[in-house]
């Protein structure tokens, strides 16, 4: 499994400015280099013609994840790294660019001229024009690669590596090839010199120039024999040229074969991204030089064939030809057909083959070979000739070829690059989760006290990846939504195309009603539904709330002279009612409805429909419809129970319980109640006393009433769950009832 997938990628928190980037950049570069090395290896081994500009672009999982991480909003929104759907690998852009190479490159024919001359230690004497500017050349070369052997036979060159002898030769070359050319590079190994020139107009398309040498001479170390190589990239085509001087003498075939192999093995270049490549890792490889292969025929016979220009039958005896044919050396190399006389060995300055005692048989020592990689297009042969410069015992030779290169059309490449980046952007935009939401507006309409209303939102994953959603708090808030709203579920996950229904329930009870009944807040909220790594949806919540005496406070209710619906409260500082008129209305209606005589009043439940009507009438101020006393009694209980703070306030609850056995402490506590609470308390006590006086009809007892009323008058705060839990324990129930009973009894006694 890909480790990046499993790792959490968290955007770096860069706390300092630019200076701090050094270390991290280094790490990134190292990582990048590793990637490049692994990636580049196969392409260079195949040395394909497809080798193209390695664009310095790419995408990594890490960076994509990072960017997604950056999308998160708010502190807690930083994705937890579990995002796995992005599958953009580091090579994406580079690969795409390569795939489309044919669109932004054009084929161009380029001419390369390769010359080789063993100068036999001579200094330049004659102009090189007949060799380098042969009028038989149909095209002016784009590249000149000129190789010499035995340029310097002095001991200084051999032992001290003195290369000053090359200068006059380079000077001579420049005199011939005109100033349209610039030198790419030259390299010398004792007597072996290789110089490469290119037409100025192409100079910028020559890149990655490298050179190397390999010695195979005396004891395999000294450079009197060996090879010099120069490689470079010409447009998109990699070219390597090797100029060599192999061991001499007719019988040394195997020695020469081995020389060739040693050179091939030893020549190495360090190229892009520290990759090490060999000569064979090039689209086009040219091997030129004095290869020293001979013709093992009697001297006279050779000369006879030369005279008759029977080069073909002579060539069949050529050692190099034989070796190549048998695969013993220069495997895979090719040579243009030879249609010129052997270039060795002449009496210097003459047209006469060796007339010395040694009488060396003429041979084609000086050759031009090439090898095209399997993935590149083969070269076209233009010429293969010898040239009549007489100063050495060898004649110079040249081969010229057509190479097809792919030249980048920069504007087109840039355009295609932009397109690819856009595709990547699109891919990334598409890989963001996306969902549709059935509505952005939830209207709960009319909401009543303690009546839950539920609405739903349907969220559908319309993106291409898994979508995780969660509701998040607004800036500077800690809660997802107002306390009267419940969201279920408030977080979740959806597969593509999956839907999920989210229920939003508004429920206002005495813990949340204060906001609407007392603080006059409206029922509005905005929720933020956040898609991880994606967009946020705003959902507006609204509902209408009618003021009600349920879930209200005594303090607030006594400020209303009229019904809560439609009446403005009196200013705080003005005289208030002594008790809420709603309570008075209910108690009064029981009196007038002969409620005192009702059997088991406050014990038997009411009728829910009547209860709802009574509640409505209390808030609107309309007269009560016909009702049963039990319904009215129950509303009284509900009213007291719904008070945001009970008649004996939450803060005194524990104290009331603690002192419940002592009459005095109970009375002291009550005497310290806020005046409205005190009034309500004694109003209710007088009422209960009155009820008890009818006990023979209603069969109620002080105990029964005390238990019922103590539960609503003496309540623990709902936020104190421990107290809430205990409040139904028998001992607590008794304590609470005791508290109330002290008052009912004492009243009785008066």
């Amino acid at each position, binding site marked *: 499994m890909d480790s990046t997938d499993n790792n959490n990628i968290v955007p770096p928190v860069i706390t300092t400015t630019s200076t701090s980037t050094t270390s991290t950049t280094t790490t990134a570069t190292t990582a990048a280099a590793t990637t490049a090395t692994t990636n580049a290896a196969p392409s260079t081994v195949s040395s394909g013609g497809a080798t193209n500009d390695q664009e310095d672009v790419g995408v990594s999982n890490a960076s994509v994840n990072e960017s997604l991480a950056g999308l998160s909003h708010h502190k807690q929104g930083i994705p937890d790294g*579990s995002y796995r759907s992005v599958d953009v690998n580091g090579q994406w852009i580079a690969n795409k660019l390569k795939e489309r190479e044919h669109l932004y490159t054009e084929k161009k024919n380029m001419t390369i001229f390769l010359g080789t001359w063993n100068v036999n230690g001579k200094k330049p004497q004659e102009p090189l024009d007949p060799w380098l500017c042969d009028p038989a050349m149909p095209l002016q070369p784009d590249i000149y690669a000129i190789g010499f052997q035995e340029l310097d036979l002095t001991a200084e060159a051999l032992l001290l590596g003195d290369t000053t002898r090359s200068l006059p030769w380079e000077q001579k070359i420049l005199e011939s090839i005109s100033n349209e050319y610039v030198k790419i590079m030259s390299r010398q190994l004792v007597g072996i010199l290789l110089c490469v020139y290119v037409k100025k107009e192409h100079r910028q398309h020559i890149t990655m120039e490298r050179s190397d040498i390999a010695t195979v001479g005396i004891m395999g170390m000294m450079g009197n024999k060996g090879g010099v190589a120069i490689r470079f990239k010409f447009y998109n085509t990699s070219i390597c040229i090797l100029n060599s001087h192999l061991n001499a003498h007719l019988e040394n075939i195997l020695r020469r074969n081995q020389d060739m192999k040693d050179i091939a093995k030893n020549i190495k270049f360090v190229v892009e991204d520290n990759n090490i490549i060999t000569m064979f890792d090039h689209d086009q490889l040219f091997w030129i030089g004095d290869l020293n292969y001979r013709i093992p025929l009697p001297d006279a016979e050779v000369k006879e064939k030369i005279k008759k220009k029977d080069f073909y039958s002579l060539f069949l005896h050529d050692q190099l030809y034989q070796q190549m044919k048998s695969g013993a050396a220069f495997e895979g190399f090719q040579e243009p057909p030879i249609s010129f006389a052997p270039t060795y060995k002449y009496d210097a300055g003459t047209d006469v083959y060796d007339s010395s005692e040694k009488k060396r048989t003429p041979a084609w020592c000086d050759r031009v070979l090439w090898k095209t990689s399997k993935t590149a297009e083969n070269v076209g042969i233009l010429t293969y000739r010898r040239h009549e410069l007489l100063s050495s015992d060898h004649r110079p030779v040249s081969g010229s070829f057509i190479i097809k290169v792919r030249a980048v059309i920069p504007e087109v490449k840039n355009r295609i690059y932009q397109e690819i*980046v856009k595709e990547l952007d699109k891919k990334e935009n598409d890989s963001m989760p996306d969902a549709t939401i059935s509505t952005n507006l939830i209207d709960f309409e009319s909401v009543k006290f303690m009546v839950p209303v539920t609405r739903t939102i349907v969220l559908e994953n319309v993106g291409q990846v898994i979508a995780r959603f969660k509701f998040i708090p607004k800036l*500077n808030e800690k809660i997802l939504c107002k306390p009267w709203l419940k969201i279920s579920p408030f977080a979740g996950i959806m597969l593509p195309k999956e839907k999920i229904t989210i229920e939003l329930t508004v429920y206002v009870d005495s813990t949340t009603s204060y906001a609407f009944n007392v603080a006059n807040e409206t029922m509005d909220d905005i929720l933020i539904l956040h898609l991880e790594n*994606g967009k946020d*949806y705003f959902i507006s919540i609204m509902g209408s709330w009618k003021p009600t005496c349920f879930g209200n406070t005594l303090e607030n209710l006594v400020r209303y002279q009229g019904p809560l619906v439609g009446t403005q409260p009196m200013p705080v500082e003005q005289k208030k009612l002594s008790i809420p008129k709603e309570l008075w209305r209910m108690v009064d209606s029981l009196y007038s409805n002969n409620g005192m005589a009702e059997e088991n009043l406050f014990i038997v439940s009411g009728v829910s429909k009547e209860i709802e009507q009574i509640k409505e009438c209390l808030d609107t101020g309309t007269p009560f419809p016909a009702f049963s006393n039990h319904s009215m009694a129950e509303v009284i209980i509900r009213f007291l129970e719904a008070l945001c703070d009970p008649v004996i306030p939450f803060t005194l609850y524990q104290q009331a319980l603690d002192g419940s056995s002592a009459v005095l402490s109970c009375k002291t506590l009550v005497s310290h109640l806020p005046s409205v609470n005190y009034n309500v308390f004694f109003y209710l006590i007088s009422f209960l006393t009155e009820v008890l006086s009818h006990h023979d009809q209603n069969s109620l007892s002080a105990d029964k009433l005390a238990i019922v009323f103590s539960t609503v008058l003496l309540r623990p705060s709902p936020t104190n769950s421990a107290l809430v839990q205990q409040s139904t324990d028998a001992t607590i129930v008794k304590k609470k009832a005791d508290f109330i009973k002290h008052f009912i009894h004492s009243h009785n006694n008066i």
Partner: protein
Amino acid sequence: MSFPYEYIFKYIIIGDMGVGKSCLLHQFTENKFVPDNPHTIGVEFGTRIVDVNNKKIKLQIWDTAGQERFRAVTRSYYRGAAGALLVYDITRRITYNHLTNWLTDARNLTNPNTVIMLIGNKKDLDGQRDVTYEEASTFAKQNGLIFVESSAKTGENVEEAFLKTARLIFQSVQEGNVDLIPDGGITKGNNVLPTPPAEQPKNCQC
């Protein structure tokens, strides 16, 4: 090889409802004009990698809801923006008149280096023009904003608006005015190192 971008800049697009914020985003990220986008009720994103001074920069663009009632909520998204595109509709003066409110929010809720670009959108509807170029240009000058008129429909000046902002942010980065902190809306792309999770993902199978 390197990462495909060196920096990430966060942008927000703000302005009244209907001025073309979402269209500008789509035109910039997808090169297309989607005429009947549903109203943005929330915040949407788009990204695009752009070239600034030969550096690849990833723009991460947050398109916000323009309705007045979401104003308070939208404010929470300003934080950490490196660029703010303040958009009005040249055919509806009211959207221009509201610019000061938006600008106040942008100034108060972003950092002082945030580049604010004023965009007069719907340039293609020149016949229905309600706000002259000169007037808006003066307003921009007075408030130190860069200004451009664009059309999300034809695409005119859309690139320019986003890119010019990026160039100015980049300049700021180079001059060392801006700290490379995520809160500044600018993150360095290649500074990303895999760090162990602060909180293990629940579905981690490693």
